[in-house]
């Protein structure tokens, strides 16, 4: 089935930044399983189920997925539930493929001239996604982010991606499809609210290659209200809005076909999200902490449920090979064991131990989606290496993601947010 976007329908000014409708209509008839029209769930619940599985393309290793319901702002009937949305603690904001919306009409975020705001998001893998910004009510269990700005990843974009966002020119990787993205969307719940750096990222004069308007088809940098910036929906909840807790079960070193857990909203706000004995690691202004390994400090380290491997040093430094059929993954001849120490800017530190096995042996032989011991390159030498604690780190742990500016339990200083585990 293919989908295309119908023309924007003007409906006047709504909420200051809204003056049009983004209508994502299916063509060719039929309906997808994701295009159900159901009312939001009852309130009073602060967790959603998550599962590590192979995803909609049946080949995603360590993909952490959930379902998200979005509704037209204020509506309880004009809604769609989108399955297979990647839970990503490395980004902020909800991004959904246009085809997964099954015809749901959402008001566009516009600039003061009424031009629809478009967004280009770059990934470190040098893939990109592109499409308009719309407003929706996001329902996750009993929590609601009302009139949140969300990113519609367009499978048939109205405008071509601006050259300023194509870091590799026309040779970059377009992730604007289920097959390329491996998911129906991304639910970004990082430890910061907005998906770009304020002040200034929503001002055209700053020339940040992320938000655009395309009057007469010519895309240029956008100036628009900061309420139109795609934002971590958790930070917009009326309660339980200071962060999330991701809880995944312990799995065997040989892996497991799937693994089910919970994404719980709020930290220390309800009986199911208390920090308990978890250590708080405050991050720096760029959302990084320091990992120390063999006496060397790697200051650009982080935790990321959107990474499907542990990023650990680099294959040249380690003296091992990447997998021939899976570039970026390590295929060592024997198990590598690591003991590292993570340190927050609040002065805390704690040890983490993990192992890295041969990816080919684990995945090619089993097809298991959940693997707690796969790794890959982070850089090219000590000066560029870091540690990214991806999905393998989450198994057998409760990992808290504290959002900057939303307060810290126990009075710890964490001006840029924190992790706790």
């Amino acid at each position: 089935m293919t989908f295309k976007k119908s023309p924007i329908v003007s409906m006047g000014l709504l909420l200051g930044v809204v003056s049009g409708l983004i209508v994502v209509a299916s063509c060719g008839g039929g309906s997808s399983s994701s295009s159900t029209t159901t009312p939001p769930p009852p309130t009073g619940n602060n967790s959603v189920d998550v599962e590590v599985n192979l995803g909609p393309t049946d080949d995603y290793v360590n993909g952490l997925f959930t379902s998200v319901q979005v509704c037209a702002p204020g509506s309880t009937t004009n809604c769609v539930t989108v399955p297979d949305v990647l839970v990503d603690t490395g980004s902020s904001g909800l991004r959904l493929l246009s085809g997964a919306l099954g015809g749901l009409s959402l008001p566009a975020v516009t600039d003061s001239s009424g031009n629809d705001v478009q967004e280009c998001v770059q990934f470190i893998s040098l893939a990109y996604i592109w499409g308009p910004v719309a407003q929706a009510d996001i329902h996750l269990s009993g929590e609601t982010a009302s009139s949140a700005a969300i990113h519609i990843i367009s499978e048939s974009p109205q405008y071509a991606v601006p050259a300023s966002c194509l870091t590799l020119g026309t040779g970059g990787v377009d992730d604007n499809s289920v097959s390329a993205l491996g998911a129906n969307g991304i639910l970004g719940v990082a430890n910061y609210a907005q998906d770009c750096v304020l002040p200034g990222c929503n001002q055209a004069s700053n020339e940040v290659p992320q938000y655009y308007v395309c009057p007469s088809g010519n895309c240029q940098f956008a100036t628009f209200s900061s309420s139109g910036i795609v934002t971590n929906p958790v930070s917009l909840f009326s309660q339980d809005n200071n962060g999330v807790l991701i809880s995944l079960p312990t799995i065997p070193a040989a892996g497991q076909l799937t693994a089910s857990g919970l994404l719980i909203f709020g930290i220390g706000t309800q009986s199911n999200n208390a920090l308990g004995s978890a250590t708080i690691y405050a991050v720096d202004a760029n959302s990084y902490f320091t990992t120390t390994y063999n006496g060397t400090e790697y200051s650009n380290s982080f935790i990321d449920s959107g990474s499907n491997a542990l990023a650990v040093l680099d294959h040249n430094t380690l003296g091992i090979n990447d997998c021939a059929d899976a570039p970026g993954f390590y295929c060592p001849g024997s198990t590598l064991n690591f003991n590292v120490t993570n340190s927050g800017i609040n002065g805390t530190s704690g040890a983490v131990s993990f192992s890295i096995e041969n990816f080919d042996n684990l995945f090619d032989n089993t097809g298991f989606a959940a693997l707690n011991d796969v790794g890959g390159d982070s850089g090219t030498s000590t000066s560029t290496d870091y540690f990214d604690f991806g999905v393998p780190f989450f198994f057998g742990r409760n990992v808290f993601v504290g959002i900057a500016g939303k307060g810290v339990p126990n009075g710890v200083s964490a001006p840029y947010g924190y992790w706790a585990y």
Partner: protein
Amino acid sequence: MILTLAAAPAAAVLGEYESSVSLDQQYMRGEDRVTTSQGYKLHQMTSPNGLVVSEYVSPEGKVFAVSWRGPFIPNLQQLLGSYTTQVQQAAQAQTRRRGGPLVVRTSDFVFVNGGHMRSFHGSAYVPSLLPKDVSPEVVR
């Protein structure tokens, strides 16, 4: 160490001569801070939107390394020139690993782009162009 501040940035793409390209100047619109270190010269440009691009020049006048850091990924095609094709091919080939950095390591080209949303960093260098006694560890 000698420090000079030039009003008009002018640097070059990887593997080419320092004087050959002025595209970076148009792109960055920032101050070009030039420092001379042991064995190489460093152009460091900081644009108003927070992007920092560094270009490392050998005594022979060739750009042997580039690096970037900031809230978005710069136009790598412009910085990498003829080496862009290798990065494109690697990006297309890296389908199994997701949400991770892109690393390219061949006998004559080393590249990485890493970090996460709002804070990206990366670098590239050409081993055969490294000045004598200069370690690739200076590239960061």
